């Protein structure tokens, strides 16, 4: 912005209003924190721990999906609206792997009625993640090839509409293929939902579910891998170069189309993994399952500073925590958790227009 310097010195009415809003908001939050924790504790520490655990796990899934948005946005400056639906396809992939493995009888000495899924849970889960991710990655690859590549030179809103069309197509194709009903994700026996280690906090037991821990650990690993991929490998370097400047990257001998294809494959694979986690942890899969997480993940990507991988992680975690802790702290109905999440987004963007971490784009490119 050309007048950034001058407006920093001058006290514009906007700045004054901004400060008033900010101070009021911070005072309000502190007051609420004081009320719920000290003056009139609404929940015991065990409940707070439950909220925090749920928020952390959800936040990690958001973060994983958000990385896909951020990578694609960084390179193409477009909102890949169909990203959530790619996650849905990955979730279905994992679901069908579980169903297929459950149909294979694997009698053991202990239990002759055993099936493959319960007998080899580790292999089953790995298979589900591999197949779910690869289907989603393929889907991302073809999506880019069919719907986005011909529009590379078009104005920015055109690929957005193409993406919206692709999203509608994928949702309805899934509905026609798999039917409109919601399906229960049947996990291997040791990953039964709701079971886990119980930790005594404040007099009662808080259950740390196995699925939650699996989701959390796996997404941390995947994200670490993605971060290293972007920052340390040759492919990551070319991705960053293409994000910086396409023609110059092409002059440096980078196959721009190839890099963009690979970006879509990576973002599709991480969305697919997130989809399988969603299924394993939350247990329901249907054709519309990717829509809300997709929007939340995009919100997290923007919250953290779009284009930056650590930003997407932080944004996702932050959003997950706000969603689960926010209603309790502000003392309002849990129906309004999305209102709080979007409200926080607006506030963050008013004070830090480039997100928490700050975007890695330069002004002139946008």
């Amino acid at each position, binding site marked *: 912005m050309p007048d950034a310097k001058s407006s920093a010195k001058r006290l514009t009415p906007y700045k004054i209003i901004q400060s008033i809003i900010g101070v009021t908001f911070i005072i309000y939050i502190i007051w609420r924190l004081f009320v719920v924790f000290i003056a009139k504790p609404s929940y015991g520490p065990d409940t707070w721990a439950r909220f925090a655990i749920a928020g952390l796990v959800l936040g990690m899934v958001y973060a994983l999906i958000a990385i896909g948005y951020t990578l694609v946005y960084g390179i193409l400056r477009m909102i890949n609206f169909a990203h959530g639906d790619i996650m849905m396809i990955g979730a279905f992939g994992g679901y069908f792997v579980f169903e297929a493995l459950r149909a294979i009888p694997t009698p053991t000495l202990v239990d002759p009625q055993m099936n493959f899924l319960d007998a080899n849970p580790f292999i089953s889960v790995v298979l589900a993640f591999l197949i779910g991710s690869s289907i989603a990655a393929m889907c991302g690859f073809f999506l880019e090839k069919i719907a986005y590549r011909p529009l590379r030179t078009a104005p920015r*809103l055109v690929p957005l509409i193409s993406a919206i069309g692709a999203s509608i197509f994928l949702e309805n194709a899934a509905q026609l293929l798999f039917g409109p009903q919601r399906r229960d994700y049947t996990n291997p026996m040791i990953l039964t939902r709701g079971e886990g280690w119980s930790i005594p906090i404040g007099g009662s037991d808080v259950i740390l579910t196995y699925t939650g821990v699996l989701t959390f650990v796996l997404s941390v690993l995947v994200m670490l891998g993605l971060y290293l991929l972007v920052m340390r490998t040759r492919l990551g370097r070319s991705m960053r170069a293409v994000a910086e400047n396409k023609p110059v990257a092409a002059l440096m001998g980078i196959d721009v189309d190839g890099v963009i294809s690979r970006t879509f494959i990576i973002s599709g694979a991480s969305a697919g993994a997130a989809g399988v986690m969603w299924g394993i942890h939350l247990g329901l899969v249907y054709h519309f399952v990717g829509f809300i997480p997709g929007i939340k993940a995009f919100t997290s990507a923007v919250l953290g500073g779009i284009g930056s991988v650590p930003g997407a992680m932080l944004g996702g975690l932050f959003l997950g925590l706000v969603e689960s802790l926010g209603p309790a702290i502000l003392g309002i109905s849990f129906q309004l958790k*999305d209102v709080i999440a979007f409200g926080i987004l607006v506030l963050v963007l008013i004070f830090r227009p480039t997100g928490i971490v700050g975007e890695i784009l330069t002004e002139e490119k946008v």
Partner: protein
Amino acid sequence: MKKQFRHAIITGIVFGIITSFLFLIGFTGIAADMFGDLLQNKSAAPFMNLTPQMLDMLIFLGLIGLWAGSNGSHKVKGQTDDPIGPAVFGGLITGLVHGLFVSVLALLVGTLDAKGVKINTYLYQILPAVVKLFILAKTPIQGALFHLVFLTATGLLGGILSRGLGRSAWQSRLQKKRNESFSKISQAGIFNKIRSNRMILYSVYGIVLVLLFLLPLRAGQYWNYTIGTVGVYVLLGLGLNIVVGLAGLLDLGYVAFFAIGAYTMALLSAPAPHHLLWNFWIALPIGIGLATITGILLGAPVLRMRGDYLAIVTLGFGEMIRILLKSDVLTSFTRGPKGVPSIGGPTLFGKPFNSDIDFVYLIFLAVLLIIFVTNRLQNSRIGRAWEAMREDEIVSRAMGINTMKQKLLAFAIGAAFAGLGGAIFASRNQFTGPEDFSLMVSINVVALVIVGGMGNIPGVIAGALVLKGLPEVLRQMQDYRVLIFGALLVVMMLWRPAGLIPSSRRRMEVERDAGVQETAGEGREK
């Protein structure tokens, strides 16, 4: 030869996937029924042990096979001479691969079905009857072999036909001519001609107006309802056109203002939650005013963000409004998820509006008014400022435009139009609930503005007709219409990135961008 082989195999795989997909979503059966209706042969005698329905399905598959064969036989790049050999060979290979895919699928599905597996618990459309039709009521192996032979034969035929039809010198001349004339039309030659001559322009307007006046009298109740919905979407599209098309601000939460207009009308004129029972004509300006004020209040802090940040914040705002309306917090005020029933309608000179026809006229009137306002705005100093701002914000600021003020103005005017649309919409439906205002409404409106052609009034109207009218026309396809709608959205963007009726300035922009890309010749395209 090797290249031709590769091309043919890839084409075969693509068509194999397409045909398998069409079968898996149950479209082959629907297509068979449609061909049956078309050919009127449903009661015909069986031919070669095949029932008419099977024959109809084979016609459909055969057409796909022909198309695949002709695609697979296309000349590949770098091939100078054009002998018949490769074309036929290409068609044959394509057909073979295509047939292989379909026959494997038939074998798989047929065997599973014969074993008694209930496939439709996993694949919803694959009922035993569908499988029986697909393998032609034979054993799975016979059915699969039949498909393999049939699709190979049609592929070969497609290759030969395309060699015969598509490659002659006469054909290529015709094709060239057609392309030329098409590009001339698509570059809006006709529209410019009409625009440049005032006599023709006004008479066209007159004819359209008369037709619009007569249309609701002839159409039935269902179509009047549809026309009314399309009209409301034209209103929304024209409003968003100012925000997105002229000022270049991507607003994905436009439905919020629509909801505010609708709920204001509902709460003021319905008996249910508050029993105010105000007159429509008093509630209408209040609804518009409230929407405008909300627009300004939302716009003031967020309009400083650019591009996609603005998009996600507005999206969030739209969702917030819907969730608030749905939640328990406002139940006593807006009846929550139950919605507000029996909203009052307008009266004019003592005559109450109670049929869809009356509302269609009211909506037409509103649309005409909005078109007039938009037109005046667009060609005024403000409109030029908006367009300058869209093109380059920094330069427009250097030209002395107060960009913040102009953005707010665009946002507020867009919100006002949405409020008007919402108030009329609620009054016509006599009901409004939170689910009327889902994110899909915002997305539909953005899509219709861009599909029609941004920044241009005829474009918005064409977009609304296509996007809201098309699903109604496709209603016969039932479950498949939304799928087709999504695919069409993509195809339309690939086919005409500047929109159906691009504004002249925007078309130049798209062409220039494409031209720059070509001359820059980055050598990586293809």
